[in-house]
């Protein structure tokens, strides 16, 4: 009797609730699309813009691309390059760091994770200038690598945390078994543990990638000559810019995001985020 504590009605509850939520989630994206593809007279130019515009136009995209063509594409690749470096480095450093933390006594690993988290507490404006100076000194000004190294700071704590959480799901005996069966340290690490932690690693990769794609504070200081996409958008959203162009750029920035987030949702587990510090 108590097994089915939700009656047959409950299925509709899920769908209704889910659809309401999904609707709310998607509305802002819908607005982004209609502003980008709608005639300005019905969107930004109107006192009370239409919720369901009737005129569809490619003018806005055309203007944005012809006005900024080369700059836009180069910003796209700058962002792309930087994001890939950030994500790869994050996974590289994070995987090994998580392994080490996993082996530590719980007390100490907790402390180190907390230390990593403290670093996210520091207002980025305060540290952006000194860090940028260091990177410029070693010749990394305006390079994707330099920007990636700076963004790594924002990304590493969460990545380590995430992969550490993924490790929790791997039974400890597995590694022990492998060593008993004659595997060396690196074989055990890379051939046994790595594949099992892969979903967590992929989640961390995608998460870092998305965070770098979004990053703004460091990009403004470290990458002015060949800016990244968020900078272009910001310049267009201020009074000296053109908000319509800014919206088109925003759409461009968001398309890969949607695709990658959907993929991320297949890999990420909440348990990755919560195991690290449970208890």
């Amino acid at each position: 009797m108590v097994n089915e504590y939700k009656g047959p009605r409950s299925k509709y509850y899920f769908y209704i609730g889910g659809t309401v939520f999904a609707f709310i989630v998607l509305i802002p994206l819908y607005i982004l699309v209609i502003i980008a593809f709608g005639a300005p007279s019905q969107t930004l130019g109107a006192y009370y813009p239409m919720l369901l515009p009737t005129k569809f136009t490619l003018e806005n995209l055309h203007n944005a691309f012809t006005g900024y063509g080369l700059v836009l594409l180069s910003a796209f690749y700058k962002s792309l390059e930087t994001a890939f470096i950030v994500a790869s480095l994050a996974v590289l450093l994070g995987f090994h760091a998580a392994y080490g933390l996993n082996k530590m006594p719980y007390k100490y690993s907790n402390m180190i994770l907390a230390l990593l988290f403290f670093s996210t507490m520091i207002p980025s404006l305060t540290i952006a200038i000194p860090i940028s100076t260091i990177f410029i000194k070693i010749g990394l000004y305006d390079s994707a690598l330099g920007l990636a190294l700076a963004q790594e700071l924002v990304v590493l704590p969460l990545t380590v945390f995430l992969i550490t959480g993924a490790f929790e799901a791997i039974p400890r005996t597995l590694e022990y078994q492998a060593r008993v069966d004659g595997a060396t340290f690196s074989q055990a690490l890379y051939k046994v543990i790595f594949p099992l932690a892969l979903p967590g690693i992929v989640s961390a990769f995608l998460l870092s990638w998305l965070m770098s794609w979004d990053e703004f504070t460091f990009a403004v200081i470290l990458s002015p000559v060949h800016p990244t996409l968020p900078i272009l958008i910001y310049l267009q959203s201020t009074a000296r810019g053109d908000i319509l162009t800014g919206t088109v750029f925003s759409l461009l920035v968001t398309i890969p995001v949607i695709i990658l987030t959907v993929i991320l949702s297949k890999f990420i587990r909440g348990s990755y985020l919560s195991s690290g510090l449970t208890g």
Partner: protein
Amino acid sequence: MPKWRDEWTAYILMLPAIIYVIVLAFVPAISAVYGSFETARGQLTTYNYNFVISTFGISPITNTFIVTASALTLQFTIAFLAASLLSKPFRGRGIYSAIFLIPFGVATIVTGVIFHDIFSTFGGYANTLLRSFGIHPIDWTGSYWTSLLIMILADSWKNTPIVTLVLLSGMVTIPTDLYSQAMVDGAGPISRFFYITLPNMVSFIAIALMIRGISEFNIFALALLLFPHSLLTTMTYALWDTVNAFPADAGATILLGFVLIFAAMVMFMRSRYGKANMYGK
């Protein structure tokens, strides 16, 4: 010489990440804290703090608290609802969860632009909607509370997914028998929530609070675009002067102080109310 233990290799592997973070985050942070007590002419004075408080008053501090508290409340409320929705299996759950995650990836700048477009007093979609229902349009940027609302909505839209993620992972660990038993005993949904769900999820709430809370105190880009009142972050930004950055250091240190207090409170809450580690290390 003792045999090289595997643990040591593991610890060494950990070093690059740790050193990286310490050098790039802690060193500048500590120098900022020191800087807040310096002036262009000397050291160890509280002048910068006097300057900040006497010029800005405590409104940036109260505003920051209001923003943080409202944002966290909204995000956690919605996240609990979404998580409870997703915690039970049903067909199509994967699609819904993919959709729910999308806002997390959208760039903050883009979020700011979109919500600015929605809530503009003239030329915004929110007012169009109100008008179509015959309600008088609201001047969104005009009053404190409406501009606060816009920023909280924008921030929550983008960040609720990550809270949902964490809470969801916590919800599925609660055995359904507890709920069944409670229902038999006649407990309604609200008391089930407060007496079963919440106590079992303290650790997860704590983690989500840490992740989100720190970011809320540091909210900046959205505040710049959407909130015409001073926060500790925008105040620090306004104070930042390439000639004399010390007053800005004072602002940043005040912010850092509050974040540390917040983190300590969360950790205290977790140790006091949380259950023992289920994985038992």
